[in-house]
């Protein structure tokens, strides 16, 4: 089944995240760009939108929810997945009701994230 590769953006101010996610997600042939700074990520997104954005919810300089809102305003079809450092219902609620597709809590295996991305891409294609 040949499909277009996904354009995935990863935003997290912790170096370990991008470092480990990029090779893991690129295994399936998708294109992955990682950012540690929210501002830069959004600037890049404004240049050309991505299919999937994976972003930490709490970063020092910019809030994950702000990023979520910016992205959805720019591109309604982009699926945004939130990374949380701890899973609480309130966070899930806030993220979901602002339009996030789903969320994943650390610690997680890249494979778990990939499963969510696959679900998201199914909706993108339908």
């Amino acid at each position: 089944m040949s499909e277009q590769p996904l354009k995935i953006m990863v935003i997290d101010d912790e170096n370990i995240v991008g470092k480990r996610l990029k090779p893991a997600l690129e295994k399936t042939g998708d294109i992955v760009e990682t950012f540690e700074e929210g501002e830069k990520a959004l600037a890049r997104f404004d240049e050309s939108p991505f299919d999937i954005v994976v972003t930490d919810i709490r970063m020092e300089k910019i809030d994950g929810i702000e990023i979520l809102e910016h992205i959805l305003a720019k591109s309604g079809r982009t699926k945004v997945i939130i990374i949380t450092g701890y899973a609480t219902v309130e966070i899930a609620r806030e993220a979901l009701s602002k339009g996030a597709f789903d969320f994943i809590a650390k610690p997680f295996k890249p494979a778990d994230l990939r499963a969510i991305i696959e679900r998201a891409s199914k909706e993108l294609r339908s």
Partner: protein
Amino acid sequence: MSLLDKLKKIGHRETGIRDFCIQTIRFKKFLENARALLDLFADGREKVLGEYIFDRHYVVTLIDSVVDRLGRMVYDASVLVPESGEELYAAYDRHKLAARNLIGSTPSAADDAVDPEYRLLSDVLKWFQGTENTGNISVMEFMRQTFFHVIQGLESNDAMTRNQALFDKNGLHASDMGIYVIDLWKDALSPPSENRSIRDFNSIPLRHLFMDSGNGDLEKAGPKANQHTAAWVAAVSEYQLSLTTLKPNFRFRLETLASGYEPSDFIFIFAGPNAPLDKIIPDGFHVERTNYGQFAWSLSITAKTIEDTLMIIGRNLFDESVRRMQ
């Protein structure tokens, strides 16, 4: 009477059955906490292998969770064996301090190739499992010592004598088998008026224990019925079984939860140091032998496997060759 004295006097009033049931349930809780602790270790070990993405917050949370869970285990132990409480809490406090030091410390051995989160986690795992440094005992070792205290208390001669008297007095003897059977949630309300049969109990683990012994004949299965006394006790609920012996020279205890929907289904076994454990339990258990007894457990196990295992154990336990050793 101080409250500690009161704790020691379980069973001397009519509330004996109730207290016995609560104690059994408390011991289950103790095992549950121990199991959760082992899960935490396993979780940490899994993460340090390298595939995961986690942050320092995860490691700190892991440390806190271990301290919390250990504290709960120690509390349960201090209720089950009040005389060991003080000693256990003293040791626990030392571990709390060690945890605090870990959280406040900088990770060992600057090694730029390894992320700092991973370095901290491997330090934490050393605390869990032990180091070569004889000055510190590991959390695992402390757990073993806690088990030692608890089992000693539960399996003491005093306890067994008391229980025997209690069960006899309350007519909990099964009519068709040499075993006392207690419904953990019903019998505390009111002891039975008539004789009870194994068949009356809706307990899945209990049924499976006897399913394969005596060639399918319940009459021949299990320990032989004796009119006056029995040497086995089974405390049960729909999915739980707590099986113990009342024989001073054959110590054996089996605890299991087989619900099929609890993630914490398990089997746990304790046997005296001379018991032929190999002849009783099948492969697949994690076994530890110590001077005071043998421990075996199986944790990530489906209810179906537990049921099958119980059949094997039942057959082995009440098989003639093993019986002779009891």
